[in-house]
């Protein structure tokens, strides 16, 4: 049809530059971003809706009167949870340090920071386990009332996400230890980092919504 269109350049602007810098993955893609990283971003987009649904459910029931047992908010230990939230926040910092270590090619430091991050994450999860048992002893079980169900499911899902993150961090640690995480594959650390930061950010939202907003 239109002959003008035919003569336009073969290589679209911003698309497949013949010698665009290779993405970290080492192979060529239309956007320059590696498939793996884009997959993680896409997946995290979907996770937003997962937590969105859980947070909405929690919010819906927070204002409702409960028929049996205590309300969740009567049991909050805000100083305690603030400390464990702070610990989780710090783990984002150490994750950044881990990434920068591998990018500089410092694999010893990488392992140190990976382990620290995993440790901080575990501390947070341990804090959550403690909180759950404390609440349970105060008479707030999973099935006690609508608020308790919503609370345990929301925070439990988040805790599960942190736990999966810890497993990923430890896998990275083992990989690095065995020498299968060379500097050129720093993107793997970056992708795990994306997940980790995401989980942290979600916690900030959850913490604010559950514990801080009156």
């Amino acid at each position, binding site marked *: *049809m239109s002959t003008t*269109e*035919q003569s336009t*350049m*073969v290589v*679209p602007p911003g*698309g*497949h530059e*013949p*010698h665009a810098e290779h993405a970290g*993955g*080492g*192979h*060529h*893609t*239309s*956007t320059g*971003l590696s*498939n*793996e990283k*884009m*997959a*993680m971003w*896409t*997946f995290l*987009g*979907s*996770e937003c*809706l*997962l937590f*969105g*649904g*859980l947070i909405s*459910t929690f919010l*819906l*029931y927070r204002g*409702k*009167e*409960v*028929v*049996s047992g205590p309300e969740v908010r009567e049991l909050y230990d805000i100083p305690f949870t603030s400390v464990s939230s702070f610990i989780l926040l710090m783990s984002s910092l150490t994750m950044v340090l881990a990434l920068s270590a591998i990018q500089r090619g410092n694999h010893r430091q990488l392992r140190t920071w990976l382990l620290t991050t995993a440790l901080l994450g575990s501390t947070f999860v341990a804090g959550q386990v403690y909180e759950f048992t404390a609440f349970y002893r105060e008479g707030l079980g*999973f*099935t006690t*009332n*609508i608020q308790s*169900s*919503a609370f345990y*499911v929301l925070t439990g899902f988040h805790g599960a996400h942190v736990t999966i993150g810890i497993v*990923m961090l430890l*896998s990275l640690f083992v*990989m690095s230890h065995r020498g*299968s995480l*060379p*500097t*050129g*594959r720093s993107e*793997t650390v970056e*992708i*795990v980092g994306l*997940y980790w930061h995401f989980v942290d950010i979600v916690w900030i939202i959850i913490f604010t919504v559950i514990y801080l907003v009156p």
Partner: protein
Amino acid sequence: MALTDDRPVLELTAGEDAERREPLGVFRRPTATTGWRSWLTSVDHKKIGIMYGATAMVFFAIGGLEALLIRTQLATPDGQVLSEQAYNQAFTMHGTTMVFLVIMPMLAAFANYLIPLMIGARDVAFPRLNALSYWIFLAGGLFLYSSFFLGGAPDNGWTSYAPLSNNLAYSPGMGQDFWTLGLQITGIASLASAVNLIVTVINMRAPGMTLMRMPIFVWMSLVAQFLLLFAIPVITVALFLLMFDRLFGANFFNVAEGADPLLWQHLFWIFGHPEVYILILPAFGIISEVIPAFARKPLFGYPFMVFSGVAIGFMGWGVWAHHMFASGLGPVSVAAFSLSTMFIAVPTGVKIFNWIATLWNGKLNFTVPMLFAVALVSQFVIGGLSGVTHSVAPHDTQQHDTYYIVAHFHYVLFGGSMFGIFAGVYFWWPKVFGRMLSETIGKAHFWLMFAGFNLTFGPMHILGLQGQPRRTATYAEGMGWDLMNQLATWGSYLIAASFLLWIFNVVKSRANPPAGADPWDARTLEWSISSPPPAHNFDIEPTVSQLDEWWHRKYGEDDHGVIVRRDDYEWMSVVGPEEGGTSAPPPESIHLPSPSYWPIVLALGLPLIAYGLLFTYWLSALGGLVLIASVYGWSLEPSVDPDAGHGHVEPDRVDDDDDPGTAADPVAAGTTEEPS
């Protein structure tokens, strides 16, 4: 994480020795690419597409049988064919099957098969993840149907409204749990596939294939995949809450504890309304490829088609509560959702006008795919218009839960999605299997189905307006509903007959003559390679310079500006010399991912976990173990087996960006690039 990473870890670092290291002795990497075993382990997007399609057709037959049972029961007043309980199971499983096990996987079949071919890629971004999606989908479907043998099928309708569904007193037995867990499993499949296909479209396009040069089918599938990406987690949450209520005594839908009875409906329809666009947009994409091919004109208003599709994708999120007008939302919400629902008809109308404009003055050729496509347009208009009548809330309160609704959504789902699917099946069949389907049988199939469809669902509009409620096993004599019900039942037998014709056509097609690479003289890249395509799709990564690239390679203008066919056009891949192509053998350097056992093993873990939740936790533990072991095996498995006989990338070609091996095969680049 490990699931999405298709790059081998071992190979990169340890080089020579690692290539010979077996990750786990139990499973040697499979190598067969032919024979039945190859289907179990294949990671080829084309095979996976075929498996999706075949499985969906089997479920279509099953769902159809359930529909026949329903219709036979309703043929006369006081029907005695099914007990009320069995009737409930029949319509629940029918609706669930048609939506989740027929239309969604059918569209996944098209997306899997066509997207890489249409964008000029060797495979999807994550081939093993793709296989995993299929096997999880199958596992979920079989799990759902196993309920018939293990204590009763679900019977709360495909919407499973709480508190009917969560309350163990109202729905005892495990049917509802099978529904909850089964859909949870298929949801995982859809989500994984959405991530995979989105990354594929965005990242794996051939040089020059800009977004606005992508075939419209790719666009509509992309929008649908984004809808899935954001809709699936919402139903996931809903299903989890329901599961926790039923299995562990949580209170999310427990009205006695003060739970909000509308929570389920909100979550379900925030998923459910986008879902209907997930079911229809790819079908729109299919007929937007079929109509131009047989009108012998480019699609009218391509950019409008793209933007209206994207607009529908966005607007689909703002209308969910129109399914809840009768539930007491309050006047403000009802007004707002009425309005937003009316607005969404606008981009849909744009599409319909563009199809009509494409047909206008075209040299129309009514092949079977074209017949199905044009039928879609006409029937979807009826379904769309009755949809707009629901957006008027006072109307809706009258029509709610009557057969008028049943008529509406069948005009959309069957007259729309399913006719689009058949248009696509007839259109791409010769590409996929290398043989034409018979036009004569196909036309008989079409006309029977068209007549049967309208005879079945047309009368339901009237029944609905006369007040016959849906989901009700019988009706009394003397309501004035008898004739219309009889017509509808006869129509349903016609549909069944048309389905048998279709199967006959498929069986017979094996003896038909080869179709050749481009039997319809079509427009998009997949027609430029042999039928069926070679495993590596393209010999050379195609370079694209415009929309409908393949068409423009075939046609040029002569000195007078008249469009004429070129004889000397460039094929993009190996087709036999009799078709004008070279018969060059595929280059040795193309590296394809090897088959793998892990997707099917991993998928097995999920129904095990689910059965465990219902029967004994031991099974869940076993399923968890299977899951963990296969994630481990998966991530240690090199994505290309050196012994699989696929040839290797020559080192000097690795840094060449046009190297076909680097497009789909990260390993090929990685092995020589990063020896650190």
